[in-house]
């Protein structure tokens, strides 16, 4: 069954990337009517993240640590609960559309944002890494959805994102789409009969 999730939200300006919301590097611009009030206004801190039900987690972004150490790699109970859980994945799928994630990542193949269905992760493949990408954003233009993902929501999204890279057919199976099959008339660019004659223009 399909039930749909509508974001009712939406009066939101998202912050792009961890660089925060000011378009940094541009402040010195003289001619900019819009900028000044945004600067003075935004000083409150963002609302605190609701604790995931698993409590605090710490997560590294890389698998190497100097001096023989091991990067921290914790997982919250909420992440564990959502991972691979069909219900969580289904809700995540709907949220992925409601939040317009699909506008940038499409159905996992990518566009403005990178592909999520391949096995390459810039910012880590763990549930916590993915949740962190969504919550805090990433520097090259992944918006921070912190203000929109309450409670366990982020893990449902993460569960769906993670599922995109599972059970996909090999790339080599992809065949180029067949050409459109259309009528000869539509295809014939020079078929003068099809076009209204300029005489009718009445000039």
């Amino acid at each position, binding site marked *: 069954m399909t039930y749909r999730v509508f974001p009712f939200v939406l009066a939101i300006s998202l*912050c792009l*990337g961890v660089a925060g919301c000011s378009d940094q590097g541009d402040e010195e611009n003289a001619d900019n009517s819009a900028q000044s009030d945004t600067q003075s206004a935004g000083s409150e801190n963002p609302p605190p993240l609701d604790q995931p039900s698993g409590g605090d987690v710490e997560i590294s972004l890389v698998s190497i640590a100097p001096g023989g150490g091991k990067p921290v790699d914790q997982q919250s109970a909420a992440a564990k609960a959502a991972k691979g859980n069909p219900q969580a994945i289904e809700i995540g799928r709907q949220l992925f559309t409601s*939040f317009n994630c699909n506008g940038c990542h499409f159905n996992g193949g990518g566009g403005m944002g990178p592909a999520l269905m391949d096995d390459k992760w810039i910012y880590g493949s763990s549930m916590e890494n993915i949740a962190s990408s969504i919550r805090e954003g990433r520097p090259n233009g992944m918006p921070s959805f912190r203000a929109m993902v309450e409670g366990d929501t982020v893990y449902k999204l993460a569960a769906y994102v993670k599922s995109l890279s599972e059970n996909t057919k090999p790339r080599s199976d992809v065949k180029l789409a067949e*050409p459109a099959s259309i009528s000869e008339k539509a295809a014939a660019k020079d078929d003068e009969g099809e076009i209204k004659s300029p005489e009718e*223009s009445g000039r």
Partner: protein
Amino acid sequence: MKTRPSSRHAFAVLVATFVLATSPTAAFAQATDDPPADDAAAPDVPADPAATGPQPAVGDSVKQLQPDSAPSPTASDETPPPGNEKGDETSQDDETSQDDEISQDHVSSSATEKPQIPDFAAERTDESDWTMPGKTTALTRFSKLDEINDKNVKDLKLAFTFSLGVNRGQESAPLVVNDTLYVVTAYPNHLYALDLTKEGAPLKWSYTPDQPLAAQGVACCDVVNRGAVYSDGKIIYNTLNDTTVAVDAETGKEAWRTKLGRIQEGMTMTMAPTLAGDKVIVGNSGGEMGIRGWVKALDVATGKVVWTANSTGPDEDVKIGERFKPFYDQYKGKDLGVKSWPAGMWKNSGGGAWGWVSYDPELNLVYTGIGNPGPWNSSMRPGDNLWAAGVFARDADTGEAVWYYQTSHHDWNDYDGVNEYMILDMEWKGEKRKVLVHPGRTGYMYILDRETGEVLSAEPFGAITTSDGVDLKTGRIQWVKDKMPDDTGRVKKDLCPAAPGAKDWQPSAYSPDTGLLYVPHQNLCMDLKETEVGYIAGTPFVGAEVRMKPGPGGHRGEFTAWDLTKQKAKWTLKERFPVWSGTVVTAGNVVFYGTMDGWFKALNATTGDELWKFKTSSGIISQPTTWRGPDGHQYIGVLDGVGGWSGAIVAGNLDPRDGTAALGFVNAMTDLPDYTTAGGTLYAFKLPD
């Protein structure tokens, strides 16, 4: 300010409340936060391409003449392209008729004069320099230089190269001014100056604007830039994060910069500014992000905004007033930029001005194409959706609208009106007319009267199933109702042309010698399904699932020489991939363009015969230009670096298993990664000494 919310509403406003519902209705929530104080708005174009895959391919380009009566061979109804390239090549071969084509082709028509480049532009066609992407503000891309010609072009050799240091789609044009070559790259929008007086054209200086990394995330269709313009000792161009910059051409120091919009709203800038006297005209991108489009004029000396004209909204914002005299009745009435939309939707309506602007100094009018309305889901916005998907003629000094014409009312296929409106003078039914020639995304070659906005002609140059011609009495395109999205929500199949149109941004060239317009374009169709979408500032506002595919015949690109007098193709070259590069034509009877699989080609401008080609490292989607160097010899320059919407599969390493990726372009480009990798290099060619 690193962590602080960007605008006063940012985190403040709430967040998502989800409504779980069973209703199929689209949810559309108008943003309630105040619009930013500046009047930036913004539209844009579609997207990224992408994807890899193996597959059948049409052979190398195959030339195809189009005899007067026969429908083009490309257009066979039946089927798929041969998986085999050779087959196509041989079957379509028309070498035989080639010799006669000129005479045969033209004798019958009543002898009319070839269209002319108007004097204001014609007088600049013999300059050694190339100072703006379109060569002149008429955008004809014709050079009188003829040292390189149809006889000797076969000997063309590489003179120098330069790495752009950026592996994203390079859509810009090398400029040459006073023995210096200037080139702008894709994001981060480096500007390089190369010294042409020295051996190997070494770097003189480089300039990189300060802009946030995050700008990359909101550019619909790769992080491209379409070039710079030279004026008054400055190189002027737009950076991805909505800033116009002017850089001292001699020193590389920033002369001024003017911030015009905010990436937080999904707005970017990718177009090349056009010079109009002492002003530059610029426009925004973001039609896939729910921006509100605008065009602005900036003072070349100071960068101050002289006027701003929005693409939608109340007349006052659009600069519609007493001087507005549109040719057709449907554009007459008050505040149509509000009324032709469901309540309030004009605020996030797209209509970016991300394409070409031409300028006629005699009429003092600028012609600014307007992009697609947003969202793509057209069922959400019943109405004509003015003033998206059309063209305004505006007074260059005041921005006042003088006339408007809409190429795609209630646009439902992403048929932006932003392709070039080239300025020519031609005889039309015995009368001299000042015209604009516009190879439209809709698939029609429009000839408009540039004084009045009347459509003189609109003949198809690509395969079309979405419309049935343009009614010249009303100027309205005749949509094919069956193909339009309806309330069944079903996928609409085989819509041709696809979202990027029969031709996208890639600019044409016109030769007054041959009377032919050289049109690089694509042959793509699509399947379209509308989906629900709500507006969230800074995220895409599209609401459509698209899967593109090759058009009839199976080849995805065409290079067409269009006879403007007869309003039909004289010859067409077929290419495996969309021809996403611009083109340049010269008095040497040679025309140049590049392919996405990395061939830079020279053709005989009269016959279309291939005379020379050079294999570049990466695919080509840039604008070739030509100039005379300090050594007195003619050069041809081009950039490689595949990407853009069509090449996003390679530039963004997208996954071909999702055909909807990059707004559905990936579905038609799954094999591109088998032919090219990302890159970014400038090449300059000349004849051997």
